[in-house]
């Protein structure tokens, strides 16, 4: 069957082609398609019956006709060839080289859809990863095997934040970064792709990075394969070669839009904002591939970047993502406009796995309480700031004015830091106490009395 070419197309439209009367085609099989000019295209069978086979064409159906289109069914799902040599290489969304070097030849070829991990086989992530960013390490810390997205918006520096995390991420006690990076970009501009490439080059990690690129002007359907191909490579590196893999993906919004585009062509019933009802399941298939497996050394930590359409966190893409991932790092346009970098909005940000990766045996015993206190104090401080905007700062009580000062200092000194500044978690915690010391001890009820005695540097104003 692999070698037979069929020329039985009965209709072609918007990326889909229907082939009539081909017996015994398997669902999900790969397709090779030759057009009238002899150009080869790739496709995937997405629906099949006795009478008709529906094929999705990655490169689009531009310039196809019914009479001179030949289709071969390759009788296998989409597979990615894998070997140690993928390190340092750049592939397109379908896993073919785009760096001008030869293709990967290997007997190890894996279905990019993967298979669901048995929940009983998972190991719970609890090793603290130090990113060097205080807003993350101190208040929303990342653990090995976690999936923690960055929710951003157009024009915000999410790429710079992601690149800084890649450069600085390390386990406590380790000298240099021990990570292998899989980087997947889909639907991004070539400028953004080049930014990452240069950032990896400058920090000397390029030979430990595998890149999968599908740029904004490249086939939309291929975008659906890109994250899957990248995660297949990540799984190979993590579970076959024992690496700790940090996967950075950008931009999930482009992915979801591609999914919607294809769903509409297929005639799927739309749910919210035209996105198909299976958007949640589809995103979960991607995100849930992060994690750790019992008795295996490697791990996959996933940082997907997504831009929230009109900064709306309730939009289906960030919303469904937030329900699947273990927290989110939200970037704020206000902070960005005030010149704070990284502009992390700490209150809507969250790391669900933080509680198990910090504290006594992981970072420092006061960490959980300090984080909780920073959240509470900053939330209160923002309330005060809101009030000051209405009645004027002069009208505030003495206690409230302290909170106002705390808010400013917290944003400038704690959240804000240099793009090359790599803070250790101890520096972060000490800085937190410096700032909390601007507030009277009785305003700090989330930390224990012993911790107050040990770290708080309050000097009552005479």
């Amino acid at each position: 069957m692999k070698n037979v070419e069929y020329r039985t197309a009965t209709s072609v439209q918007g990326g889909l082609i229907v082939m009539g009367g081909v017996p015994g085609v398997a669902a999900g099989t790969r397709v090779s398609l030759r057009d009238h000019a002899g150009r080869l295209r790739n496709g995937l069978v997405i629906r099949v019956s006795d009478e008709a086979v529906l094929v999705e064409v990655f490169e689009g159906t531009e310039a196809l006709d019914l009479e001179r289109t030949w289709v071969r069914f390759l009788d296998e799902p989409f597979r990615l060839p894998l070997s140690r040599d993928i390190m340092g290489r750049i592939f397109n969304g379908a896993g073919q080289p785009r760096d001008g070097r030869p293709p990967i030849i290997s007997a190890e070829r894996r279905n990019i859809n993967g298979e669901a991990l048995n929940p009983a086989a998972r190991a719970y992530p609890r090793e603290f990863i130090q990113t060097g960013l205080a807003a993350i390490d101190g208040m929303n810390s990342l653990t090995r095997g976690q999936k923690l997205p960055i929710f951003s918006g157009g024009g915000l520096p999410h790429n710079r934040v992601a690149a800084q995390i890649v450069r600085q991420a390390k386990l406590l006690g380790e000298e240099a970064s021990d990570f292998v990076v899989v980087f997947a970009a889909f639907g991004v501009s070539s400028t953004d792709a080049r930014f990452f490439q240069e950032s990896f080059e400058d920090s000397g990690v390029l030979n430990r990075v595998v890149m999968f690129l599908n740029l904004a002007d490249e086939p939309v359907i291929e975008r659906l394969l890109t994250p899957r191909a990248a995660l297949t490579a990540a799984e190979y590196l993590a579970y076959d070669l024992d690496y700790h893999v940090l996967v950075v993906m950008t931009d999930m919004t482009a992915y979801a839009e591609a999914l919607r585009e294809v769903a509409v062509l297929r005639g799927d019933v739309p749910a919210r904002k035209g996105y198909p009802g299976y958007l949640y399941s589809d995103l979960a298939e991607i995100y849930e591939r992060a994690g750790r497996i019992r008795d295996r050394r490697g791990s996959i930590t996933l940082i997907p970047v997504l831009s929230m359409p009109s900064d709306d966190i309730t939009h289906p893409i960030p919303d469904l993502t937030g329900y699947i991932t273990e927290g989110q790092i939200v970037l704020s346009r206000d902070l960005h406009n005030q010149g704070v970098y990284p502009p992390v909005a700490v209150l809507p940000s969250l790391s669900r796995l933080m509680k198990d990766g910090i504290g006594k045996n992981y970072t420092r015993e006061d960490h959980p309480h300090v984080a909780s206190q920073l959240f509470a104090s900053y939330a209160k401080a923002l309330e005060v700031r809101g009030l000051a905007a209405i009645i004027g700062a002069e009208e505030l009580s003495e206690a409230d004015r302290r909170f106002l000062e705390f808010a400013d200092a917290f944003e400038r000194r704690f959240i804000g830091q240099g793009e090359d500044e790599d803070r250790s978690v101890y520096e972060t915690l000490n800085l937190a106490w410096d700032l909390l010391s601007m507030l009277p001890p009785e305003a700090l009820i989330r930390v224990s009395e012993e911790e107050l005695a040990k770290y708080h540097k309050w000097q009552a104003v005479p």
Partner: protein
Amino acid sequence: MGRIVEINGPIVRLELPQTVIGEQVRVGALGLTGEVIGRDGDTALAQMYENTEGLRPGEAAEGLGHALSVELGPGLLNAIFDGVQRPLSAVRAKSGDRIARGVEVPALPRERRWAFRPQARHEAGTRLEGGDVLGTVQETASIEHRILVPPDVQGELLEIAPAGEYTVDETIARVRVRDGSVRKLSLSHRWPVRTPRPFRRRDHAVKPLITGQRILDTFYPLLKGGKAAIPGPFGAGKTMLQQQIARWCNAEIVIYVGCGERGNELTDVLEFMPELKDPHTGRPLMERTLLVANTSNMPVVAREASIYVGITIAEYFRDQGYDVVMVADSTSRWAEALREVAGRLGQMPVEEGYPAYLGSRLASFYERAGRVETLSGGHGSVTLIGAVSPPGGDFSEPVTSHTKEIIQTFWALSKELADARHYPAVDWLESFSGYVPSAAKWWAENVDPGWEAARSEALELLTESEELQRIVNLVGVEALSSEQRWTLEAAGLIKEGVLQQSATDEVDSFASPEKQYVLLDAMLQIRAQGMRLVKLGAPVRRLLQLPLLAQARRWKSQYPSEEMAALRAQIAEIPGIFERVALEYAERTVE
């Protein structure tokens, strides 16, 4: 024997004459399983529990002759099953870290022998009814598994096995049923998941489910046999709250259904639970717990089934006379699975793409909760707690709004509270409970007659402070009268000293009913004492400087539930503290 005609994602069209809706099918070379959901002439539509990649038209398909059912017997507790009751640990032993398709593993262990003790009153000739207890197996140290006659069997007992060790397959009794044939009974039997198990009649729910969470037990109680929903946007702490309930509640059996949720959360439960002790019996929590896991990346049709697998097992333990809690996280994912299948079938969507039967399916699912008199005359209950994940946190969306009409207790989670790290982020204004009058009776008899009054006073205080807070946000705190400022402070005490509860703090994680009441009562005393002074003209600023206010906020994590005497001693000092302020103030006015 039939054949595959068409494959469209999880939906497969089969040529399979004479099949029945609901029948299980096995299709293709891989032997994937699914169930029939529609018939049209000789073709049948089936939804598959596993990924259909690689299936081809023309491959074989067969009906298995029974509906999706679960195996019920010893070996259920302490296990983790997938959405169609495959034991995931055994699946892992067979197919590795990833779930291979078509893998078949029986739900209960086949080799294991259980020590069975027959009921003394049973002998040849005894008349047996469905639901009667044949005998018992001590399944875990804390749970005695009562072996039931299947509900659809009744007749004359011919023979019952003597006490001894048996596997779940061996015959332990023979019964001559009505048509004269002989049924062999074993330690286990099967029951179709979409059919509620029968009972004699419904009882009134009377006892509150104690979860150890103050905002739930004290403010919005749930009864054993009741129905509750926990809606909340992502990040509001829904899963954390449910895990707290699963850990601490005073049910005898807890079934946790992870329906379309995160894999790591189940791992968390799996790794943590064995280390935790049941606060009511002191035994490891896993001995009373059972997990059903269909994580978000597992096939969507099995996700739809997982909820029914969970509730059927819950009913089975109820029929043994136990109080069972089932936590379903999340019913929204279940509804989405329903929507996804409906979409593939081309059914007309009504709201947000959901099929028209969403409301009725939800209602009939929740209807399986309740306290009942069992077929054998005992009493058992199923308490159902469903999480809802409204898109964008919008409670007016279909799943939340339908659920709200069905349930009695509504624990609404708020994004604002969660953002301020006020956990559990249960919104005291949005939440409600229809069980307060019944719960009040129990609290009055078992804890303190003042419970209902204290609860209402606290809620009124919280509502009033909400109004005051609005004023403060507009014009500042100086605009308030002294009394109003004290009210605001008292509300803060309730929020931080009672409502906020840390799941990670060892002492605070669980509060006994007594501790809940003592803490609440203490805050209300402080409020009353302070208010008395304020009315006498004492400056509120002086009161706000009292170290007592910060101390009271820490009591919850300083005094474990067993040390209430020490806490009561602290509280006994409150009047003295205020008395001193009163004196000091009186002296100053005299000068």
